[in-house]
């Protein structure tokens, strides 16, 4: 990469921060508890809309892993998400007015929070339906991982999105507080394509049940599954295109190129619950998602009501070791 390109990326990064700064007025604090953030605290940043029934389990899950503070942007929920979140002692809440799409699918808001509150912290940026699995996550808290990454001088940790689904769609009904993976037990274990993206050094991973069902005729349009959710944040960093990639580019080099394996995790994706059908109709109409909700429109056309993603070759989820053996994630040299 030449000097000019590399300077171009730098400008691009600066522009992202400028965007976030210009949009600062769209963010208004509802409950600001950021003074309680201690040095070394592990933070979680999330942008969400109408996720009230998912929230209790989401927060419990990440509290148990060892997240110390939640920084959440609420984009106009009308289901009581905001009130519930504002009452949580370890949550700082902002409300964002304005268009999700115009704010780079919420990333401008997140960038603002990253820059102001995450400098020097390990920071997990996830959606309300993404649950991080990393090597030894049953026995070692998140801090064990971040301590180890610090000692190894690693700044970012990748976790591929793994779409989870139920065997029969009827089983995917969800009640508040439930573990969504009690019903969403299944996943696709070995139908992913991976290609490097030269411009940003990141990977582009596609495949899984969504590619297999909704995008079988147009695989190039299948959603990207690569994510880098856990980053030791520095003020100048910025996510580009959801949490799929970052600038500066070095943060995207989470894969080994000389034959070995770096450590990696998975984000279990609890998207395909019974709440999904409503969401599909709402989001396809709103057109506020990536490529004007193309993905949601594909779902609506593909399904009628709720998708059947299960097939005879689906794999039932057991634990992280299973994902490691299947080659979806890796321990690297963490033992």
């Amino acid at each position, binding site marked *: 990469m030449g000097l000019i390109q590399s300077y171009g990326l730098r400008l691009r990064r600066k522009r992202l921060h400028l965007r976030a700064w210009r949009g600062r007025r769209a963010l208004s604090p509802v409950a600001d508890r950021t003074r309680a953030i201690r040095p070394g605290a592990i933070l979680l940043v999330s942008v969400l809309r109408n996720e009230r029934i998912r929230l209790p389990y989401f927060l419990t899950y990440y509290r148990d892993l060892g997240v110390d503070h939640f920084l959440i942007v609420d984009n106009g929920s009308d289901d009581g998400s905001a009130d519930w979140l504002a009452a949580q002692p370890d949550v700082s809440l902002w409300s964002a007015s304005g268009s999700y799409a115009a704010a780079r699918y919420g990333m401008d808001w997140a960038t603002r929070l990253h820059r102001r509150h995450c400098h020097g912290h390990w920071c997990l940026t996830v959606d309300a339906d993404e649950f991080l699995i990393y090597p*030894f996550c049953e*026995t*070692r*808290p998140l*801090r*064990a991982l971040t*301590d*180890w990454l610090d*000692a*190894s001088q690693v700044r970012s940790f*990748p976790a*591929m999105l793994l779409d989870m689904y139920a065997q029969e769609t009827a089983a995917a009904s969800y009640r508040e507080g439930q573990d969504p993976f009690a019903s969403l037990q299944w996943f*696709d*274990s*070995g*139908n*992913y*394509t*991976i*290609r*490097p993206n030269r411009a940003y050094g990141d*990977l582009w*991973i*596609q495949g*899984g*049940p969504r*590619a*297999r069902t909704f995008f*079988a*005729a*147009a*695989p*190039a349009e299948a959603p990207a599954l*690569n994510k880098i959710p856990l980053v030791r944040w520095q003020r100048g960093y910025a996510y580009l295109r959801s949490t799929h990639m970052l600038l500066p580019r070095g943060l995207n080099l*989470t*894969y*080994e*190129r*000389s*034959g*070995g*394996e*770096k*450590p*990696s995790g998975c984000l279990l994706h609890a998207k395909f619950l019974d709440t999904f059908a409503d969401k599909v109709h709402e989001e396809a109409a709103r057109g506020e998602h990536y490529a004007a909700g193309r993905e949601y429109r594909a779902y609506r056309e593909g399904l009628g009501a709720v998708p059947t993603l299960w*097939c*005879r*070759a*689906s*794999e039932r989820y057991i634990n992280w070791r299973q994902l490691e053996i299947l*080659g*979806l*994630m*890796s*321990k*690297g*040299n*963490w*033992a």
Partner: protein
Amino acid sequence: MTAGGPGGSVGFVMLCHTAFDRAAQVARHWAAQGSPVVIHVDRRADRAEVQRFRDGLADLAGVRFAPRHACEWGTFGIVAATLDAATVMLRDFAGVRHVMLVSGSCLPLRPLADLVAYLDARPRTDFIESVTTEDVGWTVGGLNIERFTMRFPFSWRRRRRLFDAYVALQRRIGWRRRIPAGLVPHLGSQWWCLTRRTLAAILEDPRRASHDRYFRHVWIPDESYFQTLVRLHATDVESRSLTLSKFDFQGKPHVFYDDHLQLLRRSDCFVARKIWPHAGKLYAAFLAAGGAGPAAAEPGPGKIDRLFAKAAERRVKGRAGLIMQSRLPADPAEAGRTAAAYSVFQGFSDLFENFETWLGKVAGTRVHGRLFAPDRVHFAGGETVWTGALSDSAALRDYDPAAFLRNLVWNTRGERQCFQFGPADDQAIAPVVARDANAHVSVITGAWAVPLFRSDQPFADIRREAARLQRIETDHLALLRGGAVRARVRIWSLAEFVESPMEPLQLIADEIGPRARRALTEVPRLADLSGFGRFLQNLRNQGMQPVLMGDFPVDDDPRPITPRRGKPYLVK
């Protein structure tokens, strides 16, 4: 002053720089059993925290704090700290016969009484890993003897470029420091356990000032100071460390967590480092009173060694044939590799009526049809989805054919994959297969003509199709005979194969199912080829030159004109 209790004969010198609450817990554990502990705290540590640390241990008579030095990794500070702390130990605790050097993140795995008994049985032995520079295999950065003959004024951690440049410069100029007379450089683990006699001899050596001056500029002196000097003074060196401490491929110590509890228990080592400060279960389990293990057992870190060796291999070599989010080899040979051997058959299912079923029986595996057919993926048994949720959609497969094949072989590790291929299929996979050492490719050239011969399409269409397939197969054969091929390739012409099919079939059966190596009792049914020679002649008459099949007579005899040899013609 000597502390009372069973542990009085062993003293601990403890180097701390962080996680003082854990260090205090361990120090208290030893001191409470009568073993004196001299603690050195890195001068760079936070003042208030250090004060709290000291206050917390103030009630223990057997605990001393040594003069503080700044301990930057790789510098003499750590040795200076050790020397001062050891001096305090020998001065203040006359009953100590062995001194063990530990860190604040060490944890005793066996009762103190075990260690005392072990050392009492070996009163004159110094336990210190001490290996000559020629025999060391583990140094990071390639600096062995040069650690002793160069100067290192720049910090490796903070000024890496200057460090490297200065090393390069010294190498170029050939600038060397002289090693003091009588010293033979030795390296080894920083964590030792020395007798009072040896330690006192090192500390009170009349040449100590000159040694210290020399080692002040040696690279990572904590791994060489005592390891070298012990050779001057000791009579009985046992070159191993009593502390279980493993380093990973980057040279940083492996860390132990709660889930290592059983592994650590079974290791029978006396002390392990380093322990994650938040590993509460480990601290609770090993610092609990009592819990006597097998008393006389020798330390046996073999299991832990294997665990960490495996981890390093995973990080450095990875799993062959797997491409995933954190493994993407840049080397095309490694990237194009699959996980296991598989077989590709070209022309066999055209020539034999039931080849797939037959092969499935012979090899004891499910045999796929044409995986790369243009309409869809023909998995064995007409399945629409295969292990790993691979779809039979041609569009999905063609989006990245190499990934499709790699996924298939990876997903079905332990079950040999066999599939049919031909010139009518998507050829994008052909170069990938040809370059893959795991591919076993068997080709009957020109066999694609058999279905055409048996079809009842208009002859003009057949002729056009024959020309197209022949062109494609000719290119493919050129590829398979080319220089970059790593696959195991076998090629027969149709005529050759029809003339004596038993040998090749036996060969294939043996290769796929080596356990069932015996003579074939059943053979696949050969398609009826009467009139095939006439058919080829018709193609010729229409201006197309079929060359890949070999020679077939124009009359009705299905057998080619080449003279027969080998086994009798067994195919029914």
